[in-house]
């Protein structure tokens, strides 16, 4: 019963309240190594209102963000607690690649939506070759629902490199999930991988 509780729990927590349209990009160094990821989170209009309320923004009620508003937003958005990774996952050669903390963060209000942008450096720059590097944005609890809407063509992206979005495919995700659940039944100790990643869009970066 505990097993089914764990399985069902993972799947059934799906209940998003916050919708984020994300834009992504890649920053390369002069030595053709991937150094950082560019991230932009555009929050939905309702979440923007919630942020205005919870952070007590726009106290002068002019409908614009001033400096103290921006400081409050960026504090919450980019000064992450130790165990929070920004719902940003980079996979290199099948392994989770460690990332640093947000840099050069900025925030703006556009058409009643708050947009936060920042760069997220890799813990150590890495080579990119023909085996794809995968970038995924997801909240394991699906309270935040991310949609990757674009990959920015950064000027320093080497010519032979290509980044493309692969949108989440429900049929494929479902069959992978079923295989996983079926495999669980055969093993004594269940090791559940993060279900959230099955339901996320991803960006594939390849070079050469």
């Amino acid at each position, binding site marked *: 019963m505990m097993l089914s509780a764990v399985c069902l729990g993972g799947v059934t927590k799906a209940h998003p309240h916050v919708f984020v349209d994300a834009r992504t990009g890649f920053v390369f160094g002069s030595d053709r190594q991937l150094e950082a990821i560019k991230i932009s989170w555009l929050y939905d209009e309702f979440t923007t209102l919630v942020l205005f*309320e919870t952070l007590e923004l726009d106290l002068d009620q002019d409908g614009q963000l001033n400096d103290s508003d921006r400081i409050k937003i960026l504090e919450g958005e980019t000064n992450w607690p130790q165990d929070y990774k920004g719902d940003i996952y980079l996979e290199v050669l099948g392994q989770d690649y460690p990332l640093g903390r947000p840099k050069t963060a900025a925030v703006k209000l556009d058409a009643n939506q708050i947009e936060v942008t920042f760069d997220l450096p890799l813990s150590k720059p890495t080579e990119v070759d023909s085996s794809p590097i995968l970038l995924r944005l997801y909240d394991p609890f699906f309270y935040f629902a991310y949609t990757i809407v674009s990959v920015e063509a950064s000027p320093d992206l080497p010519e032979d490199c290509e980044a493309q979005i692969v949108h989440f495919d429900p049929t494929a995700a479902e069959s992978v999930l079923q295989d996983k659940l079926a495999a669980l039944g055969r093993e004594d100790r269940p090791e559940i991988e993060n279900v959230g990643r099955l339901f996320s869009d991803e960006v594939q970066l390849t070079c050469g």
Partner: protein
Amino acid sequence: MWLKFSVIVLGMWAIGAAAWGIVPWFEIQRWAVGEQRTFQNVMASALRSIQAGNSQAAWTLCSATAAYGFFHALGPGHGKVLIGGASLASGATLIRLSTITFLSSLAQAATAIILVGGFYFILQIGSADLTDLTETWLAPASYLTIAAIGAVLIFRGARSWHQMSQVKQATHGCCGHAHGPSVNDVATLTSTRDAVALIASIAVRPCTGALFVLVISARFDAFAVGCLAVVTMGLGTAFFNQMVATSGVAARWLIGLGARNHKGMQAISATLHLTVGFMIIALSVGMLLP
């Protein structure tokens, strides 16, 4: 006895698995999430409109929250699990279940209004702390209560099976005029006490969306409109749960067709209690886990 039990359980799982396989859950989920996003944005613009002094926007807000409540309920949630399970296992009529469904959604809306009204206005507690309070205390409290209801169902189902086997032994040994326990012995949710427990377990945890609508409308000096919008949100949720309850009653009726007599019906009811009880516990424990 065990053979009969296994046959009934296997039959129910087969029906459940078939339903699971036929319905494209993932597509439905995705569609529901998309709709929820749309109505969430309509809610935001209606709230801004109200702030700007457009009182007509109150109607837009109420329609949007009703739709939001409906589509949000399509996602996984604690109310549905319990309503669905109860309608499957209980002996309650559809009218009774409908009443309970509507009351539980309205009570859930009332909890949100009381929480925001009390904590936000009187104690001046911010909305961030309010959602923390909900997620840290009220959500687990709700799941624990729901798990407890699951346990009660299991207990009643097991007791009924036990009684049935005892009656069997008694009739063997004696002259056969022993009366079996009536179906009522295991029919859940026919008492007011059961109904109140069910409504309370759902209502103790308000929806975060409802809390946000209330605090934003309070900030825009339109708390009364916010309250109305949260009530229509509850009605939207109730409308969906109503569909769940109806399917549950229909499924119960279908399963009941297999029973040839009073005793068969009792065995099925007892088995439904056990199965549903375990399902409810499994799901609520799953929700409780980090």
